[in-house]
């Protein structure tokens, strides 16, 4: 039998997973609205961000309540703390999806840009990272969380590549600079979603092992950091 506070923790798990599911869908639909030039879909994504925001507040209140009322320890404490942090990241991902939808709405009203097809690869990778980070949470799967961490480098590489292409495109079509800035903004938003998925994966590792793995880059090179 579960003790009464364990039921609260189970409930918290359900809440954070439902927030994750909504955010995953928001990202997917935002990218779809861009691909299909569907402004109605983009509007739906933008409006639904409010649902993400109110669920984030509810989850934060639940975490505070559990900390104040039950003083969880060990794995249960790590879980509540990890949820508090993931909650922030998921809300942020929701905002980024909503930003993408706003850009999609803008671009849908303009003449089609070829560069958009380049998003397919990066968007697929980012969405897979989001999905894996949430699956890692559901199954407390450290290996899967580590896959997410590895995938982030690839997303960074693709984002840099996309930047180069965007700059080239601006040089060729300076009259459409404003639209290319929207493209750049979408790719930046996708990269940030990947960063948040990475944070969630790091929190899953913390949750499972108690190990804090942030800021542990093996080949830390201050100059390289500077270049970024």
């Amino acid at each position, binding site marked *: *039998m579960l*003790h*009464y*506070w364990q039921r609260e923790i189970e409930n918290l798990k359900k809440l954070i997973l439902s927030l994750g599911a909504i955010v995953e869908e928001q990202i997917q639909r935002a990218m779809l609205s861009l691909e299909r030039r569907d402004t109605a879909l983009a509007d739906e994504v933008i409006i639904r961000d409010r649902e993400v925001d109110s669920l984030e507040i509810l989850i934060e*209140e639940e975490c*505070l*309540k559990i900390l*104040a*009322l*039950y*003083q969880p320890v060990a794995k249960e404490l790590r879980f509540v703390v990890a949820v508090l942090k993931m909650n922030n990241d998921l809300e942020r991902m929701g905002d980024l999806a909503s930003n993408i939808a706003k850009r999609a709405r803008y671009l849908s009203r303009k003449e089609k840009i070829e560069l958009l097809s380049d998003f397919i690869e990066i968007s697929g990778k980012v969405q897979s990272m989001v999905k894996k980070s949430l699956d890692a949470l559901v199954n407390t799967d450290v290996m899967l969380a580590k896959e997410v961490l590895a995938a982030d480098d690839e997303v960074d590489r693709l984002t840099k590549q996309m930047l180069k292409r965007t700059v080239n495109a601006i040089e060729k079509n300076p009259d459409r600079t404003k639209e290319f800035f929207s493209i750049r903004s979408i790719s930046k938003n996708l990269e940030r979603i990947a960063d948040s998925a990475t944070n969630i994966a790091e929190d899953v590792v913390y949750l499972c092992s108690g190990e804090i793995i942030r800021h542990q880059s093996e080949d830390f090179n201050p100059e390289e950091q500077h270049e970024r």
Partner: protein
Amino acid sequence: MAETENKSKVHVDKMDFYYGAVQALFNINMDIAEKKVTAFIGPSGCGKSTFLRTLNRMNDIIDGTRLEGKVMIDNSDIYSPMTDVVGLRKKIGMIFQKSNPFPKSIYDNIAYGPRIHGVKDKNKLMEIVESCLIKSALWDEVKDRLDTSAMGLSGGQQQRLCIARALAINPEIVLMDEPASALDPKSTLKIEDLINELKKDYTIIIVTHNMQQAGRVSDYTAFFYEGHLIEFGATGQIFTKPNQKQTEDYITGRFG
């Protein structure tokens, strides 16, 4: 007026209470929710136990006490001259700090109440004993020795036996005055789990000076200080963002 969203089981209206010339409770107004756990917290002498005992007229037995205002249970005034006090106490079970089983067998402790209320049938009595021991999470530990003395049980078991005994008369409200303060952590956890189970069927009101316990077990918390009800609200709110400074000082241990 302190209110809860749920259906009110107990309604207290402008209650003042006196021990002789000394006023112990001042203008208490409160609605206690049905089938929820309500905790009363506050420093020693704040009136929380006195208030608990006004709810089943336990203070009647103390000479010179006087109550003004109203205590309504299910919309009937329990201090009305028409009230049958025995009937009232049948409706309200009570558990005390120190477990107080009768010096009888485990079986007789629980069968005692139903017997004096007229249940004679042995099968019916056995049924009551079993169901109450199951509800109080004691059945598995004592089912093979129901005819042995209750005094041979551990402190935690004795307290759960007292809860079973209180349930045997099929009350609607269970009052608990520091039910776990004499128990070790493991027995305390059993009592707390039990309280959480019992609220499905009963309205539970618990006095505790262990604030963490109030946080853990209750849905609503009332903070008393010097005979006044300072704050009453959802436990989650009281423990994360109390409205009154005195409540905040008390729950953070900075009372002075």
